[in-house]
């Protein structure tokens, strides 16, 4: 990509060294520093959620045959899985890609100096911190055992700091809205000359679609959670049948947000995929338009499918029919994207480095997650599979096999840009492969036990399911090991890694046109764009 930047002059002071001291970070309005703070925070919450997952799986290692031989009591177990879900969804995955990588690379990618509202950006971070502290406080003050879905009437009647936890989710929603709003305006208003919509990197199309959902859907969650808090605190009967409320209404409200939220979680991961498969194969994206437009299509249709979480909630047969049909419609754009990424690899120059290995893991795991979704969108089979471990396996293949894998692909892809250093390639590859194996060992058996009838959210189970649980729990140790390795080589990279050049992968998008790590104002002069982000040369010339 042509720019006015000259890359060979001496390294200048980067955003990391531009200002010194802890305060220079805490009150920064530099999108890059805010991105790094978000990155550190979401890595910490991921570690917390991961430890909770290890504990949940440890309890499930064996069934409790006599009273007292359990690792955790039912009440503790229920708090553990609830907290695991809440941490992973609200504290990790929703902010992960947009707030960490989106913040860092979005302005760079469009050739801007910062986001449109830098102060709002900093505010969004502190709102996130406040929400996190509230959630941790609720955990220490007894914890909640409602499941991350907060279904009424249980959540309205059970004792414990439910209101505090609900308010934490409410506050976190604002952080998400602020970020979304900021990104929409930035993409509309701050693109460098020549950066047309058709030249926008696909990562940004995905972030753009995500931001729209964040801004439109999150308020519904906020209102729902407020209604729940009002019912609990003031006895206003909205969901409780004893007070004249409707217990199923909560589920409609909740999923009206949370189904689109599933796309808040996956679309950014899809955006990352388009960057990884092109750059590390030196290949033009196959079907740029189809990928960009399918993100928008997903964003729109995702608002119309919430009822597929409720096929057995007593909704009418015809409501079930419509929701099932729309669910299949929204599946098509996702399938198209996967096929486009695979086709992109055709004829490429594929480097099997860490970002590419994570990208290939995504393709395989997300395919399994998506294909198994067909069983769940189909009415007759969902009746059997709903609320069993089949569902647990399915959404982990999508959320972890999709988004989390893409997140770590992005971490390895943008790491040299963010910190100006390379990491040990060998260990990075080992970690990626180990994760892939451990993930499948953990979650594949859950499909089988689920379709055999094992319900989810059970702290104890029948002996016939033991073998599946044992395999699954062993897999978590492999996953844990892969992350321990990752922490070691990334820390070593920060302290003693080889210096990264401005563009170590030979990528074409603008973030690689400035030095690594970038200077505080990103570019000396606003660059002018004359090419698309994936215009790689062909062997033997054009």
């Amino acid at each position, binding site marked *: 990509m042509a720019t006015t930047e000259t890359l060979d002059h001496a390294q200048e002071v980067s955003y990391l060294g531009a200002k010194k001291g802890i305060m220079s970070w805490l009150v920064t309005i530099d999108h890059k520093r805010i991105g790094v703070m978000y990155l550190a925070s979401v890595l910490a919450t991921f570690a917390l959620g991961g430890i909770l997952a290890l504990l949940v799986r440890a309890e499930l290692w064996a069934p409790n045959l006599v*009273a007292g031989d359990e690792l955790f*009591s*039912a*009440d503790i177990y*229920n708090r553990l899985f609830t907290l695991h879900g809440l941490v992973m969804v609200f504290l990790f995955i929703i902010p992960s890609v947009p707030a960490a990588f989106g913040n860092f690379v979005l302005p760079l990618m469009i050739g801007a100096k910062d986001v449109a509202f830098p102060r709002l950006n900093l505010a969004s971070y502190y709102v996130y911190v406040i929400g996190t502290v509230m959630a941790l406080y609720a955990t220490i003050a007894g914890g909640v*055992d409602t*499941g991350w879905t907060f*279904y009424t*009437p*249980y959540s309205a009647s*059970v004792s414990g700091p439910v209101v505090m936890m609900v308010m934490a989710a409410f506050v976190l929603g604002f952080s998400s809205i602020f970020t979304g709003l900021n990104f929409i305006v930035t993409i509309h208003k701050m693109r460098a000359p020549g950066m047309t919509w058709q030249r926008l990197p696909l990562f940004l199309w995905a972030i753009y679609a995500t931001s729209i959902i964040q801004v439109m859907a999150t308020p519904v969650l906020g209102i729902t959670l407020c209604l729940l808090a009002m019912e609990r605190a003031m006895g206003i009967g909205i969901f409780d*049948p004893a007070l004249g409320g409707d*217990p*199923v209404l909560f589920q409609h409200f909740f999923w009206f947000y949370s189904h689109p939220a599933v796309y808040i979680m996956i679309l950014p991961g899809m955006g990352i995929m388009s960057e990884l498969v092109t750059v590390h*194969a*030196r290949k033009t994206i*196959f*079907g*740029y338009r*189809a990928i960009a437009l399918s993100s928008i299509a997903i964003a729109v249709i995702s608002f119309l499918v919430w009822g597929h979480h409720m096929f*057995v909630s007593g909704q009418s*047969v015809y409501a*079930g*029919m419509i929701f*099932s049909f729309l669910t*299949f419609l929204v*599946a098509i754009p996702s399938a198209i994207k996967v*096929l486009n990424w*695979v086709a992109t*690899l055709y004829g*490429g*120059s*594929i480097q099997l480095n860490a970002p590419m290995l994570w990208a*290939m893991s995504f393709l*395989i795991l997300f*395919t*399994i997650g998506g*294909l198994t979704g*067909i*069983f769940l*969108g*189909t*009415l*007759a*089979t969902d*009746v*059997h599979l*709903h*609320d*069993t471990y089949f569902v647990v396996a399915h959404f982990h293949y999508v959320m972890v096999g999709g988004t989390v894998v893409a997140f770590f692909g992005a971490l390895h892809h943008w790491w040299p840009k963010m910190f100006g250093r390379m990491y040990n390639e060998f260990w990075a590859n080992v970690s990626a492969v180990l994760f892939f194996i451990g993930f499948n060992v953990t979650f594949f058996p859950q499909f089988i036990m689920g*379709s055999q*009838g094992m*319900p*989810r959210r*059970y*702290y104890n189970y029948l002996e016939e399911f033991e073998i599946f649980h044992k395999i699954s729990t062993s897999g978590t140790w492999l996953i844990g090991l892969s992350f321990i390795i990752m922490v070691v080589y990334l820390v070593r990279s920060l302290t003693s890694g080889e210096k990264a050049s401005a563009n170590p992968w030979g990528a074409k998008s603008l973030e690689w046109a400035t030095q690594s790590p970038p200077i505080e104002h990103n570019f000396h002069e606003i660059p002018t764009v004359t090419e698309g982000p994936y215009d*790689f*040369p*062909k*062997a033997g010339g054009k």
Partner: protein
Amino acid sequence: MASETAQGSFWMPPEASTFAGDVDALFDFIYWLNVFFFVAITGAIVYFAIKYRRKSDDQLATSQVGHNTLIEAAWTFIPLLIVIAIFVWGFRVYLDQSVAPDGAYEVKVTAQAYAWSYTYPDGRVEQELVVPEDTPVKLVMASKDLLHSFFVPDFRVKSDVIPGRYTTVWFEAKDPGEHIVFCTEYCGSGHSAMMSKVVVKTVPEFEEWLKSSGPPDGMSLADWGAQLYTGAGCAACHSVDGSQRVGPSWKGVFGSERKMAEGPAVKADENYLRESILQPLNKVVAGYPPSMPSYQGQLSDAKIDALIEYMKTLK
């Protein structure tokens, strides 16, 4: 893969209801479709990864093809047609699952944290669902407290059970035998113990059973009580070995002095225990939450007697 077997298959539990086979046929179809697409996609990835692997640092791509209308149209419309076919198939089987035939034998199901009870047309209340084989049975379900969900894997039926609203499921069991019932809507500490059983009997055996009352043949009253302790869901909150759960342990309770949250202490005789089961809030044991559900209308007198007999044996 699932086939017409009584033992079940690698993926699926036994097919014990008339429509289980239809559900499994669809499951199999989707399964093989998944296998096909998975192998195709993974195969392509592995093949490309080997064939186009970068061998030297300056190696460029040999193709820069950016789109191909024919291919893109094909992989949009072919999957679309396939999923529409699956949708139609799934909806038709679902209609069979949802709509009970006229004249089905009706049993009322009551869910309550953490037990199921079944009320028969003659008013008898049971902790196990006893049904005749080869007869359509329709369950009309409601919850007394939270959301629960009634799931019989062997029958491929599931429905949430909701307070203040009726939901239904129906099935026709194929052979005599026993099938597990799970609660699949999370309902708190006793959720994973909220199980029950469907017992399918031949029609003559079922009619015989309908006439009987009292403990099953050859079982003492105390043994029946022990069975009801788990069957009626008491085990979720009461231990019998002195250990702590939501409610007091039953070990040594009979005949002991009980301290009350309010009012004078009470001696735990038959009348007190009976009252504790039917109107638990009248006298709440000191140190415990008033969370014991009432079993009024859920347990017959004979069963309450059996439970009390059982408590007497726990010294």
